[in-house]
């Protein structure tokens, strides 16, 4: 078990190396002079020179690379040009917001997606199956901002049940957090639940066709035990991998959701950074978010090993 964790962490290192290299290289891939791009069209040569110096763009490239990694080692990701704060600082403020929202959305996704997927598989070709699959289909065909907009119109404007946007931290007021986080979470969850439902259904159907399910029935086990114990235990294995993908999509989706609902999370700050050419923020934000996702995927792998004894005992 430890072996698996160590091996995954080891495998993640070259990936993080390339990721950090790519984020470093971003600034240098800008066509033209990055300092001008950042400073803007109306900047004076002085301002451009200042920016060039602040960002270390006047150094030879290897020196910049070295500085990048040296700073990384001590946890310095530079300074946001837009916000004037250290990038790390900004990320630390905003990560909990995004994580809380994503956790909420993830729980909803898992509940709706798993239950409807399993129900659809068990009641294959009945109205339950078809209804679930139609909803799932619609879910993956809509952009989450569209659903968000519709929800705002319905729940915030027409019915006035929920605020149109903004954010209240959980620690300040749990009910307020719930009120401001519910629509964003649902707009993300509904769509990802569609994806999960489809995959859960096909996995369950695949599993239910296996020989060991026939054996379980031949033993005289009640149907509920056959499905909930034998089938589900096997189906959860590939589904766990999907959860990793879903978390990645959640973070991706947070970009839009946070912008739409004015939630001060990582997604919103990154969008603002891109729009305002705040490259240090873009670099640092991308790096941290990706590192987090790599960790999540390692966690997913560990769960996978916990669920599948064949992986555990062969370490495959």
């Amino acid at each position, binding site marked *: 078990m430890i072996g698996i964790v160590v091996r995954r962490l080891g495998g993640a290192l070259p990936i993080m190396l*390339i990721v950090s290299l790519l984020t470093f290289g971003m600034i240098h891939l800008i066509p033209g002079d990055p300092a001008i791009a950042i400073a803007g069209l109306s900047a004076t040569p002085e301002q451009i020179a200042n920016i060039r110096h602040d960002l270390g763009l006047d150094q030879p490239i290897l020196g910049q690379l070295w500085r990048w990694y040296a700073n990384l080692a001590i946890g310095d990701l530079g300074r946001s040009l837009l916000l004037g704060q250290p990038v790390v600082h900004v990320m630390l403020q905003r990560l909990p917001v995004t994580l809380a929202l994503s956790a909420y959305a993830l729980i909803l996704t898992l509940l709706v997606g798993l239950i409807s997927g399993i129900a659809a598989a068990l009641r294959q070709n009945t109205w339950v199956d078809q209804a679930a699959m139609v909803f799932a289909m619609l879910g*993956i065909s809509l*952009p989450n*901002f569209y659903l968000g907009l519709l929800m705002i*119109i319905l729940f915030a404007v027409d019915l006035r049940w929920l605020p149109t946007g903004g954010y209240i931290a959980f620690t300040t007021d749990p009910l307020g957090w719930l009120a401001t986080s519910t629509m964003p979470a649902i707009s993300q969850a509904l769509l990802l639940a569609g994806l999960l439902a489809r995959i859960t259904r*096909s996995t369950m159907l695949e599993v239910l066709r296996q020989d060991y399910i026939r054996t379980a029935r031949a033993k005289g086990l009640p149907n509920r035990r056959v499905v909930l114990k034998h089938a589900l235990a096997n189906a959860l294995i590939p589904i766990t991998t999907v959860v990793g993908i879903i978390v990645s999509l959640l973070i*991706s989706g947070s970009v839009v959701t946070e912008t739409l609902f004015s939630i001060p999370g990582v997604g919103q700050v990154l969008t603002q950074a891109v729009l305002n*050419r705040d*490259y240090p923020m873009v670099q640092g934000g*991308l790096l941290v978010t990706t590192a987090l996702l790599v960790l999540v995927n390692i966690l997913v792998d560990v769960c996978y090993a916990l669920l599948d004894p064949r992986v555990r005992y062969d370490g495959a």
Partner: protein
Amino acid sequence: MAPEDIRQSPLKLTLRRLLHHRLFLLGLGLVSIVAIAALLAPWIAPVDPNKLAMRFKFRPPDGDFVFGTDNFGRSLWSRVIWGARLSMFIGSAVVLINAVCGTAIGAAAGYFRRLDNILMRFNDALMAFPAVLLAIGVTAVLGPSVNDVIIALGIVYTPRTARIVRSSVIVLREMEYVQAAVAAGAGHWRILRRHILPNAMAPLIVQLSFLFAYAVLTEATLSFLGVGAVPPTPTWGNIMAEGRQYMIDAPWIIAIPGIALMITVLGLNLLGDGLRDVLDPRLRIQS
């Protein structure tokens, strides 16, 4: 299989099964509507989508303006149709890039063991970035424009396609007919071209059709955020972004492009499902 099935070529058989697959046909129909509208844009939407006409602003859908007008009096019908053209163009371009680059990388990694490690490390690194974040990162570097959006989406999705091609190639590489070809002295290129790639097509085609859907969706998201094609370019995302402020008074500005988007993506997803059911029985969602 009945004897007559054996006599027909596999391609004809596949086509016949596709044409009997109801959901595939529905998807095909939906996508065709959008594609044809996009192709015929200069004729069916002759009004310049960017033409301002302030005296017509905020007209709801009526006899004169089938889809209504927006805050600048621009015809929404024109904007949405030309938006369809853009979406189809961007989607096709991204699919093309993926087909070429993804296949090249995936086949190289799957076939040449020495390249596999290094290629897949880069591949996985690119896949580690959340898709939309990587896309906006690339547009931050390249700047917002239709072409840069295409490049950004190409970069984001090619690793996934490469992985799928690689999986197929790895399995096919071990097949006995390939080993027979190697024993007969066939060169790498010939083996890839004649034996391996044709058989790796099925999962690739399925992936590409879903990819078209992701590309259209992600492009809409990017323009909605303001990091995609610059307004006044009439992408659906832009239309919805601009219409957001007026969503209470003039909801049709958001509603209509949203529905168009949904029809397109739904059609593409149905197409993908149908292709998967027919082309790759192992991936089949039981029906």
